């Protein structure tokens, strides 16, 4: 990617992690956990667990009616369990030997670069299996470009969703975004009005049976605002935020207190646990919600997500 920063990013060649830091930010990528483990800007942690590709959405009434969730059930398993099978690092676009011990002994305490890319490869537990790569490129101002690639495989059932899911340690107090009003899906976005919107709290749309909800298509940028951390020394409760921006194409996202699986398990909204975290997902492909009926009619074909073709998306996490 084009490096627009004049600053350099410092690289910490750890034994279990790759640390990338600079003024006002510090990121840690874990070889063991298979992903980005820490995203700190201005002293505030934004990750609870490593971001992972996501493949499932909580079954809508329409999905249930037409048997979609049954046909695509193997994506639920791999949404819960996913193997990281490879990690690769490139410095200023040059691949290097994976800098784990003892290969990392060659480095010092003052290693810098214009930008560093770390790529994780995940293998699905589907039959047949396929892979997804997630590449993070970090520059000296702490900007992270994230690029996610799904590799299509013949014989796989349609995808309920495809995205990258971030779990944040505490619930967001609100999020602001530039995009379409309300909740939108590929087959239900004509009524969305372009603009800047604020959503307070982390509302879960109160469908009688909790299900997929809260999608925002065609988003240019979104800022998640929190006011608490899990750091026992941090007693401040002022707002702090993190911004995700489009990289070329607008993106779709949802910002909820629950994972698809948590929503999936509830038969009523009151059964959902107390909101403790933010589940922020950027989607590269969104399945339509359909609407012809709720007992058999499928979502219109152009709004399906084929698992047999490639899907790619990218976005940028704003630096400091």
């Amino acid at each position, binding site marked *: 990617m084009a490096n627009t920063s004049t600053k350099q990013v410092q690289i910490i060649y750890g034994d279990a992690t790759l640390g990338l830091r600079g003024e006002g930010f510090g990121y840690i990528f874990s070889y063991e956990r298979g992903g980005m483990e820490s995203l700190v800007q201005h002293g505030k942690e934004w990750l609870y667990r490593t971001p992972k590709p996501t493949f499932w959405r909580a079954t809508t009434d329409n999905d249930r009616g037409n048997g979609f969730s049954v046909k695509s059930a193997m994506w639920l398993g791999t949404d819960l369990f996913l193997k990281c099978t490879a990690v690769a690092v490139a410095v200023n676009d040059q691949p290097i030997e994976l800098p784990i011990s003892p290969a990392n002994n060659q480095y010092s305490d003052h290693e810098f670069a214009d930008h560093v890319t770390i790529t994780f490869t995940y293998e699905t537990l589907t039959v047949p299996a396929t892979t997804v790569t997630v590449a993070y490129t970090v520059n000296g101002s702490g900007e992270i470009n994230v690029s996610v690639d799904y590799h299509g495989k013949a014989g796989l059932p349609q995808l309920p969703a495809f995205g990258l899911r971030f779990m944040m340690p505490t619930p967001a107090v609100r999020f602001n975004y530039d995009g379409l009003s309300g909740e939108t899906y590929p087959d239900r976005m*004509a009524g969305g009005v372009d603009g800047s919107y604020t959503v307070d709290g982390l509302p879960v749309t109160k469908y009688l049976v909790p299900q997929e909800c809260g999608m925002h298509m065609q988003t240019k940028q979104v800022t998640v605002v929190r006011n608490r951390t899990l750091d026992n020394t941090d007693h401040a409760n002022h707002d702090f935020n993190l911004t995700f921006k489009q990289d070329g194409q607008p993106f779709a996202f949802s910002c909820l207190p629950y994972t698809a699986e948590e929503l999936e398990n509830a038969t009523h909204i*009151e059964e959902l646990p107390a909101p403790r975290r933010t589940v922020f997902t950027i989607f590269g492909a969104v399945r339509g919600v359909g609407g012809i009926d709720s007992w058999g009619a499928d979502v219109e074909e152009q709004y399906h997500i084929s698992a047999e073709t490639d899907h790619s998306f990218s976005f940028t996490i704003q630096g400091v």
Partner: protein
Amino acid sequence: MMKPELSWLDDPQTFRVNQLPAHSDHRFYQSEADLATGQSRFTQSLDGTWQFKFAKQPSERPIGFYAPDYDRSGFDTITVPEHIEIAGYGRLKYINTTYPWEGKIYRRPAYALGKDQKGEGMFSDGEDNYVGAYLRTFTLNSELQNKRVVIQFDGVEQAMYLWLNGQFVGYAEDSFSQSEFDLTPYLKDGENLIAVEVFKRSTAAFIEDQDMFRFSGIFRSVRLVGEPKSHVQDMRIIGNLADNMTTGDFSLKLKLNRQANAKGNVKIGITDADGESLFNTTQAVNDDIEINHQMFPNVHLWQHTDPYLYQLKVTVQDEQGKVIEIVPYKFGFRRVEMKNKIMLLNGKRIILNGVNRHEWDAKSGRVISLDDMKQDIKTFKENHINAVRTCHYPDRIEWYYLCDQAGIYMMAENNLESHGTWQKMGAVEPSYNVPGSLPEWREAVVDRARSNYEVFKNHTAILFWSLGNESYAGDDIAAMNAFYKEHDDTRLVHYEGVCRNRAYEDQISDMESMMYDPPKEIEKYLTNDPKKPFVDCEFMHDMGNSLGGMSSYNDLIDKYPMYQGGFIWDFIDQAIETKDEVTGQTVLRYGGDFDDRHSDYEFSGDGLMFADRTPKPALQEVKYYYGKHIN
């Protein structure tokens, strides 16, 4: 005097006993001052607290409770209007197609499997047929004394027997139509004792199988009405248009109820919305008064975007010239017709941006308030919803007035749905369908058509009568259609079942009607030399997170003039507000949440609105597409 029989519950041929004939829903006032306040002194509400005794089945009911000397010390209380289930006496239950006794009791409708299959005892001795005994006293207001006094029940589900001062007055079925009885012969000075025995089930259960929570009880208002000695019993207003579409063609038929051959005058006046007089006439009081084809050039037309109403006022005077009754009615001039296989309003193609609307309030079920209705109208207007199908029963009378005023095109549907008799696990299987072509069921359903017509016939907003929903098709439904055709040439008739039994297609619906047909299938119909215009009586099933793909339906509007839009299923979720048994928080519960089995669970929630009247996210999509064809 007629003796009430419990066996009426089992007999589809007995559905009204001593009920007064249905008539128009006009209001009437004693004076201009009363008219101005909207409070008629001729009416006396009987809403409020009644004494109540619940019995689990007919054999356990308090027999003879209506007698003045009956010991009622063991009675509880209930509110009128309220569902017996919401009051906590009967169990809440939701089910869609199958009958509410599915898996518990084997029943087949009387006569459906043979002339000798009369179903005796099926309901009168039904173990699931719980009974509510209602009692209260009243003393007539002075304005009602020395008048003919009738009682109006706006809605009682599902069968009721009525007594006054221990004397049997009458019997009614048809939960959603007003039942009216003459109390005059039984009234006495001072305190009167009124008693109503409400049965949860009767043969009406087979034809009231709507996809809804299954309630019982007196769920709409009850009132006494005193009638002046010359009283407009019924009126038929026709505000049509001449062929030029600018000249109003007005007709009026009044039926007067005259006591002791009362004499006097009837003044009839029409003013426009600014109060300017267009027409005045005075005629002598008579049993029938008619004005035929009075023409008004350049009338202000009624339509969705400009629901202009004229004010008709009928003033009845006695021989001394004293005003004894004033009947106001607002009506519009508009013309509904079929031309070149396209349905037109005022000469222009109708596009229905509609919704199906159950009456619903999360706290009180189908007991809804005027505020609920006004909010719904507001939501309609804000989202370009221009039409409503009263699925699948007549609504509260006020709703029709609101639709006149707001310019909402109505498909006024009868109280009829029998899908449990012909649709089984999704398959069309009409082996014991009612009403079908069974003569024993015909009068019951034609009576429902008659009630719907007679009560609502003056509402400008009604463009279509609808024979009911998902009741298959046979001679009986054809007879309902024939009733409308005989009585009303100013509107069209719709019936969804036209697509279920093609043998009847020319006898039961002016339009092709389907539900949930995919856009591609509709297109096939439209490109295959269709006989009739197409209406989606139900489409875009908005259950949960839904309403995707509306553009495909919108495209049909632009491409095919004979595609005339439809009614989204549906307007509001059916769910009941209650307290969570674990946390105590206020929650919304659906089918199956009350240990009610067999159930169709969350299928009760398909609305554009959540049950508490907050909008679902999909509503903005409706606003967008419906806003494309505002007409």
